[in-house]
């Protein structure tokens, strides 16, 4: 975590009870048979999450996974925590209720590009703007898998699928740009097959208090195989991945041959040959900048067509009051304490409430 330069904000899991016993990945593995297609990127993510969860040191019973509908949304069944496999697109709403009701729970949402960005787009942006304390894992395979291969809201224009035999005429969303536009406080992107990076991002996301959005590029070997080959292949990935590390100059390519500099023409950023610019002109990534403008500019370097280039890492991580903390604070303030369990007092106050206003008595 230190290598990512995460500051000591109030932790996302601060109020969640910790486990007395060390847990292992096996403790988080349920007895259900995993039923994704062979070669699906979801396996790698599941494995990474199962082995990462013990690192949190939390009690297993205080972890909740909520999902929507889609291949990735089967995720909660495979984890031995509390979980709900809900309905299409609505997982952020259910997680909002859970996270607001219970500060002592670590709440996770598992969703896909169709679930989160199409049918559930509205809930996603509102969860992000409210900054409810939860971590959203958005598995982006740029296709609809469970319904067998229609284009998704992240599929490239022109994509030929079962529902678009002449090519899709839809313009895709860039999930990171969308999240930044919704003023998300934690936005990251990682890759299913890079376990180390994936785990480090999960750790940072869990530690963040507020809504963390983690986009995970995930390969669908059946309906969209090879969508991320450019950023996965050892031959091309050095040029394809723009690595974002807080406090580090953004340099990539073979032997650091490429760099990001500000583009005065557009107000954004552009890729140049490192050799052509002064070291001081190279953008130093600042994930903690309260202003999301630079993070947004960097997010625009993602290819909207076939993915040949994409920034990977934590785009933005800033502190902002969370909805659930503020909502709970109001209840605590009104109650005059964390939780009023004095039933006699509650009954008296209820009697005073319903017996208020202008009353009259008939004998």
């Amino acid at each position, binding site marked *: 975590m230190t290598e990512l330069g995460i500051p000591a904000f109030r932790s996302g899991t601060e109020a969640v009870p910790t486990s007395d016993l060390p847990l292992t990945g096996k403790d988080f593995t349920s007895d*259900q048979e995993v039923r994704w297609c062979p070669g699906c990127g979801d396996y790698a993510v599941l494995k990474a999450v199962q082995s990462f969860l013990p690192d949190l040191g939390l009690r297993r019973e205080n972890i*909740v996974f909520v*999902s929507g509908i889609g291949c990735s949304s089967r995720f909660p*069944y495979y984890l031995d925590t509390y979980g709900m496999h*809900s309905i299409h697109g609505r997982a952020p709403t259910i997680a909002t209720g859970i996270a607001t009701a219970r500060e002592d729970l670590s709440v996770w949402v598992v969703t896909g590009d169709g679930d989160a960005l199409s049918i559930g787009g509205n*809930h996603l942006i*509102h969860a992000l703007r409210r900054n409810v304390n939860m971590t959203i894992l958005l598995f982006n395979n740029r296709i609809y898998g469970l319904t067998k291969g229609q284009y998704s809201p992240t599929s490239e224009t022109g994509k030929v699928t079962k529902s678009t035999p002449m090519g899709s005429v839809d313009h895709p969303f860039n999930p990171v740009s969308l999240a930044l536009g919704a003023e998300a406080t934690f936005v990251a992107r990682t890759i299913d097959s890079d376990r180390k990076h994936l785990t480090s991002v999960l750790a940072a996301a869990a530690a963040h208090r507020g809504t963390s959005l983690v986009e995970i590029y995930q390969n669908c070997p059946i309906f969209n195989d090879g969508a991320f080959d450019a950023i996965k292949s050892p031959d091309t990935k050095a040029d394809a991945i723009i690595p974002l590390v807080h406090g580090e100059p953004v340099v990539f390519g073979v032997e650091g041959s490429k760099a990001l500099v500000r583009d005065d023409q557009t107000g954004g950023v552009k890729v140049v040959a490192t050799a052509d610019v002064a070291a001081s002109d190279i953008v130093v990534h600042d994930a903690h900048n309260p202003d999301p403008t630079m993070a947004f500019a960097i997010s625009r370097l993602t290819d909207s067509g076939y993915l040949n280039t994409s920034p990977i890492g934590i785009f933005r991580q800033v502190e902002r009051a969370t909805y659930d903390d503020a909502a709970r604070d109001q209840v605590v303030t009104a109650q005059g304490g964390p939780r009023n369990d004095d039933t006699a007092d509650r009954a008296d106050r209820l009697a005073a409430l319903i017996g208020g*206003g202008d009353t009259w008595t*008939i004998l």
Partner: protein
Amino acid sequence: MVAPDKQVKQLDRVIIRFAGDSGDGMQLTGDRFTQETAAFGNDLVTLPNFPAEIRAPQGTLPGVSSFQVHFADHDILTAGDAPDVLVAMNPAALRANLGDLAKGATVIVDTHDFTARNLTKAGYSENPLEDDSLAEYAVHTVDLTGMTIEAVKEFGLSRKDASRAKNMFALGLLSWMYGRPTETTDAFLARRFAKVPDIRDANIAAFKAGWNFGETTEAFVVRYEVKPARLAPGTYRNITGNLALAYGLVAGGVQSGLPLFLGTYPITPASDILHELSKHKSFGVTTFQAEDEIAGVGAAIGASFAGQLGVTTTSGPGVALKSEAIGLAVMTELPLVVVDVQRGGPSTGLPTKTEQADLMQAMFGRNGEAPLPIVAPRSPGDCFDAAVEAVRIAITYRTPVMLLSDGYLANGSEPWRIPAIDELPTIDPDFATTTNHGEGDDAEFWPYVRDEATLARPWAIPGTPGLEHRIGGLEKGDGHGNISYDPANHDFMVRTRQAKVDRVADSLPPLEVDDPSGEAKVLVLGWGSTYGPIGAGVRRVRKAGYSVAQAHLRHLNPFPRDLGDVLRRYDRVLVPEMNLGQLSLLLRARYLVDVVGYNEVRGLPLKAAVLADVIGGLVAEAEGIDVDITPKETIDD
């Protein structure tokens, strides 16, 4: 001039309607008159009626807002069919309401706005105050606005601000006419306008001037007296349905010991429940104003999963949007209260008008076999008990419950006997704390093992060690709750979910049938807000000397166990509804009883006189006699 002697006339009941432009403050005026009347001790029922537009074009018919209050020296059931008194603040208010008046009714008109322009806007080609078109009524033409401006001159308000106090002048005049106590209104105005002393003083002055005008003018020679009603002993307050419903939900939280979580989205006519609950955080109430109807119910389901009392409030269009999520709550068998304050439909329909056409939506408006219990209040005050009952069923049976209020109950009011807290049921959430399957090292928690009596599944909340489990929308295997596509299991689970809802009937009392003579051949059966008009219609028929029985359903699903027997006991069963026969359809399907519907969808409560005629017709048919229900004595509905 010496004030003329005023005659005092005794009345047993009066129906007054205040009508004006939607900006004239008629709802406030009606509400204040109601509070004064409640403080005086009359029984009362109110009927607010206003346009969906916040400020429809001034002076036009669509912009008319009205508030009807019926008060009496005995218990009454409806807001009254035809007003005895109309206060009309402009030509449009006169024209829009005149047709509803009884012949000989008193009409008090503010002449100030009877200008050529306003008359044209209201569709009058001649001034009705100057021809004989109002000959059938006792018309009082008064320049209410002019006198108000005169009365508040000393406060230096603009002419426009000064004239806005005219509703208080009208209230003062009517308060004088009916001998209402004025203290509550004085106190209210002092409170409401505490921060704007000029406006406060002007309103109080206008209110007093209206009273004094009544006292001194020769135009009004009669005051009326309606003695306090002899209601059952107890402490009363006047309450609207939405307020009572919100209190009932708070009470449900207290009685179950659970924090209440409201996930909702504003919608007419349900929003007041959100407004009210948002004030009661001290009872552990969280209100979440979501981005849409679906997010509201989703968050409520999440809160229920986490161990709170999840509630969502809406109207019919919102229920449509929430349907898939309600199905999830059916499948996951989590407690959830869904409040539907019904309004005119379909689609956006009539947002501010009442209807009971969501019964089928509540029963069947989800994909698959998705049964849920349905509870309906019958009067504004009864919304309290109905809400507590909905909470009881939701928690005890781990199920979403639909609470079907309507626009009339929501905004209408009546005196409500405030219950003692120990009269309320205690509701036990009975959270699961231990494994429930297998022994020793093999002991497991199975989320779909059922209670033998209720068929409810265990409610194990996150944070409970050893009971980690996953639920969701996919079909569950009986007992263990893992995903199951097994045909026999699905058939079993569908039938079990239905059986669980049917089991709720075990906890219900027998249907109360009001059949004083025991000789009635006709039963009138209703549900929801038609209780008042049906009761009043039944009274009229009985007063005319005929027998008729009445019963009213609180539970629409499941029905009380003895409903079929009750229906078969009568030759004719009349089911009046503000829809095209939704309860009738259910009764015919369930019991093969040929019930007769009486159906109106006018966005307004049914009328007692109309129902009395319909009931009379059925009594004549059933008993083979001539029936004449023309009132022979005082009507007391």
